[in-house]
């Protein structure tokens, strides 16, 4: 079946049976493989334009007047929006979220802009500075290079999830004691990396800590104190 026709029909179905949505997504991806030229981001017709034109506007060709009205009321926009989201079940700092998100949303933007967890910072959006470091299933990752939609059922820990009320995590305490920051903007990333650095077994000497903390830039230049803080936590031997 031609992809466009297929899509159109499914779209019409979808108006009646929204629960078909998940299947449609999979079908669409399968179709894309067979017809790679039909959907490209570089094309001057965007994917969004494509879906809207092929979907709704074909539907409009059947032209019940009510559908024209739908377009005027920007319902086409709403349908397109619905088509473009994917369901995501994710646990952040022990709290489960069931969300519908755009597939292009990064984990960083999901945390900051949608879940209002602004402790995780955006410093470059290119995985070059480390400010956005969080733990996913216990491993440090750069949330700006991570698509949220790929983290189905993941357990995410951000800086907000470390302290138990007023009781700080040992790494947070050590950063305060050793003054491992100034402006504080890279600090959440440094702390998340610092904890991971010890857990990974990469904190056995100052040299090793420096090496394994070099993905986290601190423009205020608090490196000396950051190494002091991580060294103390490592030597303290507490469970992290």
């Amino acid at each position, binding site marked *: 079946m031609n992809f466009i026709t297929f899509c159109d029909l499914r779209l019409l179905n979808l108006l009646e049976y929204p629960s078909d949505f998940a299947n449609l997504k999979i079908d669409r991806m399968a179709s894309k493989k067979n017809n790679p030229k039909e959907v490209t981001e570089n094309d*001057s017709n*965007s994917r*969004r334009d494509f879906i809207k034109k092929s979907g709704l506007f074909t539907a409009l060709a059947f032209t019940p007047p009510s559908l024209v009205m739908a377009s005027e009321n920007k319902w086409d*926009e709403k349908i*397109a*929006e619905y088509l473009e989201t994917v369901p995501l079940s994710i646990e952040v700092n022990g709290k489960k979220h069931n969300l519908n998100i*755009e597939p*292009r949303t990064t984990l960083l*933007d999901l945390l*900051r*802009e949608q879940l*209002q*967890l*602004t*402790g*995780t*910072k*955006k*410093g*470059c*959006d*290119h995985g*070059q*500075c480390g*400010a956005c470091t969080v733990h996913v299933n216990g491993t440090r990752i750069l949330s700006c290079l991570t698509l949220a939609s790929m983290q189905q059922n993941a357990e995410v820990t*951000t*800086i*907000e999830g*470390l*302290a138990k009320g007023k009781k*700080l995590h040992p790494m*947070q305490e050590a*950063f*305060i004691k050793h*003054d491992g*920051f*100034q*402006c*504080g*903007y*890279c*600090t*959440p990333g440094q*702390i998340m990396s610092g904890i991971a650095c010890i857990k990974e077994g990469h904190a056995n000497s100052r040299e090793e*800590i*420096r*090496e394994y*903390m*070099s993905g*986290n*830039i*601190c*423009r*205020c*230049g*608090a*490196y000396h*104190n*950051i*190494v002091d803080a991580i060294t103390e936590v490592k030597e303290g031997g507490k469970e992290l």
Partner: protein
Amino acid sequence: MSKTSNINRVDGFAKVTGSATYSAEYKTPGVVYGCLVGSTIARGRIKSIDTKKAEWAPGVLAVITHLNVDKPTGYQKVKDKRNFGQPLQIFKDDSVLYYDQPIALVIADTFERMQYAASLIKADYFKEEHSTDLQKAADKEKKIDTEKGNDYHRGEHDGYKNAEVIFEAEYTIPTEVHNPMELANIIAKWDGNKPTLYTKSQGVEGTRRSVAGVFDVPVEDVSVFSEYLGGAFGMGLHTWPYEIAALMGAKKLNRPVKLVLHREQMFTNVGFRPFTIQKMGLGATKAGKLTGLTHEAVAMTSSYEDFMEGTVNMSRFIYDCANVSTRYRIVPLDTCTPIWMRGPGEATGSFALECAMDEMAYKLNLDPIEFRKLNYAEKDQEQNKPWSSKYLLECYEGGMERIGWKNRKNEPGSVKEGNWLVGYGMGTGTFGCYRSPTSVKAKFLPDGNLVLQCSVNDMGPGTATMMTAIGAEITGLPVENIIIEMGKSGLPKGPTQGGSATTSSVGSAVHDACNLLVSKAVGLASGTLAFKGIPITELTFENGVISSKKNSSKSVTLASLLTANKLDELTVENLSKADEEAKKYSIYSFSVHFVKVLVNPNLGKIRLAHVVSCADIGTVINQKTSAGQMYGGAVGGIGMGLMEALEIDHRFGRPINNNFADYHVPVNADIEKQEVFFVNKKDPISNPMGTKGLGETALVGMAPAIANAVFNATGKRVRDLPITLDKIIETVKV
């Protein structure tokens, strides 16, 4: 050591838990997302701009360009003069004055939709020839038409030329970019005709004035919140076009607009340390007495603003010398306007001066520190005033001992550790101590807390912690009982955070306000029955309790005093400023950076094995945060010395390395061993605490220290920063 001299950062809890709120993080109902689209040419005019696709893209609320913008009424009022402080008027017309100049603002309802829509904007241009290369345009240099731009002469003009021993050389520093970790960002909104900005500003009051000027509204109607800054290092000293754009968007939509620059835009749109070419001429007797010093600098500015900094100023006073000439010139180029970057001017100037001093010392066969001591300035010859205090010699001694200067050999390349060549070097830094008029409100609350209010920011040095330490010292209250409110308009007016002046200005204001408040409390208490018959001079205030010095059983708590007088709070607001006495002195901080480098002669690799930074900054209010600032300034200087340079492809007038992968800044692995030493002696003149300022001297002098150490290790003199391995590897003898 007092109990407040080594306290933890008071905003530490907020910063390590992620609860500190930076500008773009204020929870603002109904906020929409804006993004600036930049020009793809460096000079010309916009022929056409296609915004249709973006406008039709899902979720897009507005696309603003020069064609449809409501020009702020303040635009017309700006005189056509190239004064610094009149930045690019965004969307004013079709002209393009630098690469990546904003030509459109796209606003959409979500971040993702905004980014996508912005990618659909396309423009065509009438291109004009651009000029971005200072080294090719240096002949277009011009003098700045202000007093500060004048040439300086003491004694004979260019007197160095008549000396027994003459040294001349040219030094260059490339464009460096502040690149604080927090991107430039703002949430802008309007309440009728009153704008509110949550923005990355180093000066709340300055931003208010700029915005009031552009939109032609009263200053009092402009609200600015800038409570936490994720670093700035100078880039927050200007109100930039992106801030005005966000306000335009918010006004058009009558909704709050959040606008965060991309990291790439941080390299093109919010200033930088300007590319500068410097010529040094030194003259001395054979015995090592400086007789002449000439320092000339040519720096870049933009085509629309005359920017200058004190690049040559240090040469006028730091060494004893009868004949001194300095000249400063600028060349307009097709770039964004530069802005002061940490250690503005002096960092650039000290690279040339302190390298030249090192080179001259070699020429005279003197130890570089011996040479400096021979030319130690007993007074400020530029202003013809005595120093308020000067402990530069203590910095030399402290640094020599810690770095192991005795292991240094004057002969380059003569010390080795395994396969590594070892070199020692030092560089001197200085920066003026300034004090701006500052208002602080201090109030005692019935719960025993002291609140200190000032609109000053804290971009990272620990201003809030400093205010707390001084407040605690004077009132005797525990640190935990002091609440700081800062970084927003509506509070008593504080200065812009910059020029190493914050502690001197705000600290003094806290000092004065707290003293007045304590006096007020004691005065109030002396009228009560408890102290009947006891003279006011015999009452003391400690930790929220007023008591008789002679009979401590006679006491009254602040809380009961407030209750008895039916007061909700006891308040003092005071404007504090420098006294006339200070004008009789020359007040400067001094620093000396020492480095031990290891250079691999086969690879040209440079390691900083040991860095010692010493400073005379007067009284150290808080050892912990001051040390942090000194470590950090030194790291900034290491970046300047070894890696930082914005490379421009002059064919297109645009940067090549506009990201953190290609524009290298120091990372943890670069910093092997660092030490900090403060003389910590009170300055008798500067201000009530005797502080002199630290932020700039922490960086000034580090780059030449590295260059001098590299020469000591290898015999290779690098006069163009940064000192990358390619500049060493070709010429070092293996």
